[in-house]
């Protein structure tokens, strides 16, 4: 199935879920659409969806930045509104994907004053016993892309976290198909951003990509993770 057909189908059947967590399928669908925001065949799919999501939904938080970057200035207020909500009710149980939002917010709108806090949250997530490395690597590589490299210590800190998590992921016996999609996404993106050596890791990322594409209709596959992976695949 062609990428654009799959993505369009997923977008058309998008459910405005009341289940509001950072790393749920809706969040990753929107993220994936965001990552494809330069893919002209999709037009304004993301913008149209984002505008229908209530501003305080976490699952639209990360993707909103892509819409903001395309010049939709009113989205900035939506993001700030969501951040105000989060500051008031910060949830210690937030999953890894929340870190992407915090990093993007700090870089784009927060003045970078709280990078240390963001870094501490990444470190805390890395030390969780129930860490899912595929999800965590996704959060880290998105953070790496978002963070201001001029404050190099944090950028380098995220690179180290990514490499450590990658080493752990490689040791895992078996990944489910969603983990494979996120691992493919994060490995390929890390190669492209020169966080890891493409010579050593790109093939592993491409192998995972092919495995997921070979089972793209699997009911166990998080469609958002698949779109994120496809978005990165378009760049390789």
């Amino acid at each position, binding site marked *: 199935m062609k990428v654009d057909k799959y993505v369009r189908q997923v977008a058309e059947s998008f459910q405005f879920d009341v289940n509001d967590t950072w790393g749920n399928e809706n969040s990753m669908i929107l993220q994936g659409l965001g990552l494809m925001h330069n893919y002209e065949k999709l037009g304004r799919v993301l913008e149209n969806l984002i505008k229908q999501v209530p501003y305080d939904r976490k699952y639209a938080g990360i993707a909103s930045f892509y819409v903001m970057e395309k010049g939709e200035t009113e989205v900035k207020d939506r993001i700030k509104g969501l951040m105000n909500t989060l500051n008031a009710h910060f949830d210690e149980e937030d999953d890894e994907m929340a870190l992407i939002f915090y990093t993007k917010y700090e870089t784009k709108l927060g003045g970078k*004053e709280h990078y240390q806090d963001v870094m501490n949250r990444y470190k805390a997530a890395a030390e969780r016993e129930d860490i899912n490395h595929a999800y965590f690597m996704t959060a880290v590589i998105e953070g790496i892309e978002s963070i201001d490299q*001029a404050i*190099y*210590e944090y950028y380098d800190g995220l690179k180290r976290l990514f490499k450590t998590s990658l080493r752990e992921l490689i040791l895992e016996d078996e990944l489910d198909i969603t983990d494979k999609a996120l691992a493919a996404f994060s490995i390929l993106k890390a190669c492209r951003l*020169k966080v890891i*050596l493409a010579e*050593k890791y790109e093939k592993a990322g491409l192998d995972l990509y092919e495995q997921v594409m070979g089972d793209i209709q699997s009911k166990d596959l998080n469609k958002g993770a698949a779109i994120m992976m496809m978005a990165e695949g378009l760049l390789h």
Partner: protein
Amino acid sequence: MELKLVAKTARCVVVELTEAGKYFTTEEYELVINDSVTIRGNKVITSIYDLKPDREYVIKAVWGDNVIKPLKVRTEKEFVTLNVKDFGAYGNGEHDDTCAIQAAIMACPPDSRVLVPKGVYKITSIFLKSNLTLELAKGAVLSAFTDRTKFPIFPGVIDSYDEKEEYNIGTWEGNPLDMFSGIVTAINAENIVITGEGTIDGCADFNNWWFEPKIRKIAWRPRLVFISHCKNVMLQGITVQNSPSWTLHPYFSENLSFVDVKIKNPFNSHNTDGLDPESCKNVEVIGTHISVGDDCIAIKSGKIYMGRKLKQPTENMTVRQCCMRDGHGAVTVGSEIAAGVKNVKIQDCLFMNTDRGLRVKTRRGRGEDSVLDNIAFENIDMDNVMTPFVVNSFYFCDPDGKTEYVSSKNPIPVDDRTPSIKRLTFKNIDARNCHVAAAYITGLPERKITRLTFENINVTYAKEAKSGVAAMMIGCDEASRKGIFAMNVEELVLKNVNIEGCEGEPVTAENVDKISK
């Protein structure tokens, strides 16, 4: 008065007439070479060109009615000259001559020179190798393209295959980040001379490199001359101008000489520092004229990551007989100084029309290796400098520079992030037509400046003194005609300090442990 040898090549000799002034001589004089050629001069440091290799010259200086004791000097030997036009360079201001010049460089044997004769040579980046003399003849211009897609990229870091180490090539403002290669670049090379009366022109303007200068586009902006991990490098005589960013950037290099170089960038160009030695040792800058859009000389040693990792300060640096004008600071230490700066002496110089004379920029977070020590200014004339001495420990121009941690005037516990400033000395300095303040000095409350010495200092103000902000820090308000303000200093030495015409107290000391007079 004495005529001394400063530097020589096979084709050029640089001499110094001692006790004759600061940068400019107090009167014109003549240099007579082998009793035949006469050059009129008005600078203390003078380059004599068009000499022959391996030949003895007798140089006399005639000062008024006095003939100074002649200087005998033999030029260096030279094997062959490789004229870049013989290698296919056009020099017509249109043709891309990069490859032809590069071919001449790579083909050049030891004890020889690559000659760029009169003409305009369009290039992107050329790369120098060891044991090379590159001569830019009078009227020769290496004129850079400004299309960034034509330039090679230097990655910030490349991981080793075993992922245990990394190789750093690119750098931007103290961090190992992707940059375009310098217009003239040397990496891991030694014994290099760039000499002559010609010009390297970056051709930067507000439609290309200086447009949206703080946004990375593909990679960060190139330096005009980038010298990385090199030894024994001399730049002599040449003019460097319109740099895309920092003009001369020696990086982790040693034994460097900059002699009679002319550095010119527009006063409003972005980040066009003149000379930025970063983590270098044994640096001398002599007889150089700098007029730029940022700091004339900015001494650096990396931001936190590079400073902490490699701990290589810039040390043993001398700047003398130089003229610095129109920049933000004449000589700046910082702000990327995580590995410290030690043993720097600035003497016999002119500072004109700069915002500041000495400018130290640091902040909490630079780290415990960021130690500034034994930095001395002696025999300096300043004219129309807004604030002659600024030491700012609360510099706010980093992306995270306006945080409470950086800006707090209350003591914060000392830890491995706390920088330190030890001994700063200012001696025999005449600062005329100042505007904002004589000095604005701030140490950190938790780690004061150890010893700050002002000796034989004269400060006067312009008749219509402008107001301005002495230091880029939160809490430093616009002011005019202020005296010396010193805060958080252990010992402040004030010997024969004369401040004429200031408004308010000539000296204001806050949290200063001891004032010696």
